[in-house]
């Protein structure tokens, strides 16, 4: 698994949009010529990728909210960010 710098601040690419889908009431990620239906984990993570909040703070907020073991949570979040950054949907401000 890729190791992300906890002090970096993940943000959404200007070319994608998170949007509430009126039909399914789920958040979807819209990108050039494509749609990604997000699972709950991805929705929670992406909703916090504002380019200002550090990865450490995002993890801390999620840990408090979900009362999840820190290691497990970190692994889920890193896995999700790895996939989304590989497709250019998420970038990291250092």
């Amino acid at each position: 698994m890729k190791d992300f710098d906890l002090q970096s601040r993940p943000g959404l690419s200007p070319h994608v949009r998170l949007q509430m889908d009126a039909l399914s009431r789920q958040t979807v990620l819209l990108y050039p010529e494509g749609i990604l239906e997000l699972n709950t984990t991805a929705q929670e993570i992406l909703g916090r990728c504002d380019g200002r909040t550090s990865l450490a703070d995002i993890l801390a907020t999620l840990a408090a909210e979900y009362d999840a073991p820190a290691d497990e949570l970190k692994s889920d979040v890193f896995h999700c960010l790895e996939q989304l950054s590989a497709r250019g949907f998420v970038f990291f401000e250092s």
Partner: protein
Amino acid sequence: MSYRPYALLAELTYRCPLHCPYCSNPVQRPDDRDLTTGEWIRVIGEAAGIGVLQIGFSGGEPLLRPDLPDLVLAAREMGLYTNLITSGVGLDAPLAAGLQRNGLDSVQISFQADEPELADAIAGARVHERKLSAAMLVRQHGFAFSVNVVLHRRNISRLREIISFASQLGATRLELANTQYYGWAYLNRSHLLPTKEQVRAAALIAGEEKARLAGQMEIFYVVPDYFEERPKPCMNGWGQRHITVNPVGDVLPCPTASSILGLMFDSVRQHPLAWIWEQSDSFNRFRGSQWMMEPCRSCPMREIDFGGCRCQAALLTADPRRTDPVCGLSPDHHLVEAAVSSSGHAVGLESMIPRR
């Protein structure tokens, strides 16, 4: 079972300044007047209402419609992600600024090759330089930028050069689309089909470059289905996710469906889009698997590849219900094999029929 459309391809006009011999637009075009601005805005609203989230403005050349910025604005106001699919010809600074102001998200520019002389020869027009200027404008205005190159015998051997060209242009997404043989491309098939050796080399290069450029430019290599053993899951299934509205308002389950003789399409001028999506004969004809013939009907792959492409079955066998002849299990597979084995005979660009 209910179906929901996610993407609308809005073909705004059939007019185009290019004459690419692989164009998939219909050879015989409907003889009716193009939809008006008001009609398009109504269609876009109806599409959003039944679930569409993505719109592609295409053609022909969509930049020939002076109301394009208005349609982009309407689509954005209805929450759609807006994609312009263009040759780039006709994009100037004021238009780019207007499209940006109205919320256009993404631009896909087609290139015919990396090399200007070859590119212009394929396009049948001196347009390569103008496309380069358009690409510059797309980057300056911050749109998401994709490049599309249709591959065929004339350019597939330059694949590595084509990929570095797109990457140097600053595209973040590159579609390498092996020619699909419909419309004009079907007429010119014997001139366009690459050789097996070319296809084999291209697949290797595409794989290597995809890995090399990961994180910088995403490469989509659309496989040349004539050279495959299994058909493509065309449109993710007929009437499953996609709607095409052509310039005169006919609604099609796929952009090339008008090549299926005997299939009638309903128009947004006569019916609401929701009715056409749910109720029309054309959208229901090949939904699910009840319509299938053998070998598809009892095939374990039938819900995965949907029997392949209906247009291809119709073009090659005159019966759209038959298995896509690309499939190795199709009793008509010899038709594809014959086309492939006769590919590679030296014929010049000048002997192709240019798209009009």
